[in-house]
């Protein structure tokens, strides 16, 4: 299928409003299984953008924007609301043992400030100061068993085992870059909101703001089953490992590169993208002069991994905004990559028709 030549001038833009929404969403706390803060913001934002909005049994927000013409193609867009973080396990005197929720490298935790519980109480992941450590100790990573979240004596009485915590990083725009603790996947959340706002008339748009992606694509599984689309796109954030090597040698493993544009998936741990959708996205990008990159095939995954196996099968592809330092206290993404991701998805939806499903794979 050849992408429809809609004018590039209709491309929705990421402006101050979208960045302000991203800021609110990135600063909100929504560790997997406790996504209510983000859900509340999403529900308020899409109130007038969708025809039918519901919160399902697992907490996914499922919003439908009906097609206004036939033949309509049922297209699902998924972006996950949850973020990686911590859960308090046990403690006293304001010092809490904790578990990680989602994929977090424990080596990077000591010294980080965190927000704990529904009241966002400030805490610190403490570490022994250099004055009191031996050279031997400093050579080894501190294990999770030996780390505590310190919220202080007073606040310690207000938090409980099971409470979530996350990095305290506040969102910032630094020149061309966006910095935040939860841009994975609040970038996707805002993108899907914008695509709802600009939904083409011939598409039955099924938006899923999913829960529990970071602990195994659990929300997307039931969302895909419930929405039962003809095809689906997962919009996510993926690591950019494009840093210089110490010896100047070419690095063969970087996943994606910052400033390379939206990353289109061919294969990851959980999904082989539908070849028709890969081709179509590439054609769309080339038609509209939107930069793009193919994410290096390999591990990792998105909601697409759960969605494509629902019912009698759903063709899927994922598109991610590349970001450095994913799953740490500060992810760095580029405004331009995000803008190009929105543009690619907007034009892709504009030109998409049921004929794509009749193509050879």
């Amino acid at each position, binding site marked *: 299928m050849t992408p429809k030549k809609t004018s590039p001038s209709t491309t929705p833009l990421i402006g101050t409003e979208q960045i302000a929404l991203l800021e609110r969403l990135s600063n909100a706390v929504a560790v997997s299984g406790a996504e209510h803060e983000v859900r509340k913001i999403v529900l308020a934002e899409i109130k007038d953008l969708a025809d039918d909005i519901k919160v399902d049994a697992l907490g996914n927000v499922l919003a439908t924007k009906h097609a206004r013409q036939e033949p309509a193609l049922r297209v699902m867009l998924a972006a996950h609301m949850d973020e990686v973080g911590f859960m308090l396990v046990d403690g006293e005197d304001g010092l809490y043992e904790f578990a990680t929720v989602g994929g977090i490298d424990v080596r990077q935790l000591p010294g980080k400030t965190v927000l704990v519980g529904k009241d966002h109480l400030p805490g610190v992941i403490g570490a022994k100061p250099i004055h009191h450590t031996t050279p031997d100790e400093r050579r080894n990573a501190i294990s999770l068993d030996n780390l505590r979240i310190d919220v202080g004596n007073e606040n310690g009485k207000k938090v409980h085992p099971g409470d979530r915590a996350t990095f305290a990083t506040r969102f910032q725009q630094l020149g061309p870059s966006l910095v935040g603790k939860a841009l994975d996947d609040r970038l996707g959340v805002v993108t899907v909101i914008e695509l709802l706002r600009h939904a083409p008339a011939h598409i039955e748009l099924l938006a899923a703001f999913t829960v529990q992606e970071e602990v195994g694509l659990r929300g997307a599984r039931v969302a895909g089953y419930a929405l039962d689309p003809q095809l689906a796109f997962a919009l996510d954030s993926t690591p950019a490992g494009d840093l210089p090597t110490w010896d100047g040698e070419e690095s*063969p493993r970087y996943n994606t590169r910052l400033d390379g544009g939206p990353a289109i998936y061919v294969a990851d741990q959980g999904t082989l993208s539908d070849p028709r959708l890969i081709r179509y996205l590439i054609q769309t990008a080339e038609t509209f002069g939107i930069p793009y990159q193919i994410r290096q095939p390999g591990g990792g995954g998105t909601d697409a991994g759960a969605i494509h196996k629902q019912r009698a099968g759903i*063709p899927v592809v994922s598109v991610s905004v590349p970001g450095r330092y994913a799953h740490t206290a500060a992810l760095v993404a580029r405004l331009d990559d995000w803008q190009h991701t929105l543009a690619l998805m907007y034009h892709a939806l504009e030109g998409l028709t049921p004929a794509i499903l009749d193509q050879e794979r």
Partner: protein
Amino acid sequence: MKPLIKKLVEAVGPSGYEGAVRELVKKEVAKLADDVRVDALGNLIVRKGKQGSGGLRIMLSAHMDEIGIIATHIDENGFVRFTTIGDVGPRTLIGGRVQFLNGAYGVIAGEWLTGTDQVHSFEKMYIDVGAAGKADCPVKIGDLAIFDRPMLDLGSRLVAKSMDDRIAVAVLIETLRKLKDTPHEVYFVFSTQEEVGTRGATTAAYGIDPDLGIAVDVTGTGDTPKGMRMAVKLGAGPAVKVRDGGMLSDPRVVRWMADTAEAAKIPYQLEILEAGSTDARAIQLTRAGVPVGCLSIPCRYIHSPSEMVDYNDVQHAVSLLTILISNPIHLQ
């Protein structure tokens, strides 16, 4: 049956890109089937018969896909780095040749290792496609390839890159050809994406909603020098699977398959495989659950570019499967 097998095993069809195999199978089954369709994940679903009174809805599954590799990086000098599609072992790769879906060929080579007893990890391997540099490399990131190897006919033994599972695709086609009459509604499913986690069979089974499922796939053997411990051997008949790493066959299905083979005087073996699994696992866990079994073709050197099966086992598998689905079934 050998010309059919040769066509199938030499076709190119890594997981997710089974189109060439699907077209071959479509041609073979066109005149034999009551209905042919392709589902959302590319499974080819071929129906024969209509469920009458006492008949069952049966799903047979043989996967069309094969293991392969996918390009992850093209370096400045035009060498291709890659990762695997499906469970590929690093030991069988160096010196092998690959064929990309776009028609390009290449040789798998490895970085210089200091010790002679070391094995290259995938990170230390690359594919040389004969390019002089990045600019004239015919391969892009995301391009898939399979292990290029023609079939070898050793008389009663056949060797090919993708016996797993094209030999079962051939078995299903031949069974359909031989099937005269059946009280059942039989779905011959030529499934996709088995090697990456039985994904095609998962959605095919949901769509078909069968009363009974049988996967046909290859299984390992214990009949090679200092090989793995396993009772199955080449040439002793197809194997009725009792269990594998992901599935316990329904004991009623195992009894029915074994009793049918005994009664028809078809040689068979019972199979206990400690690792791995098949489409039967996906079928079993569909919707509210499905009784399943698996008919296995014993195969040496699985997931190497030279997988070996016994031609007599293959023909016996066709005979047994045909009898199994030709008659009324009362699981007990």
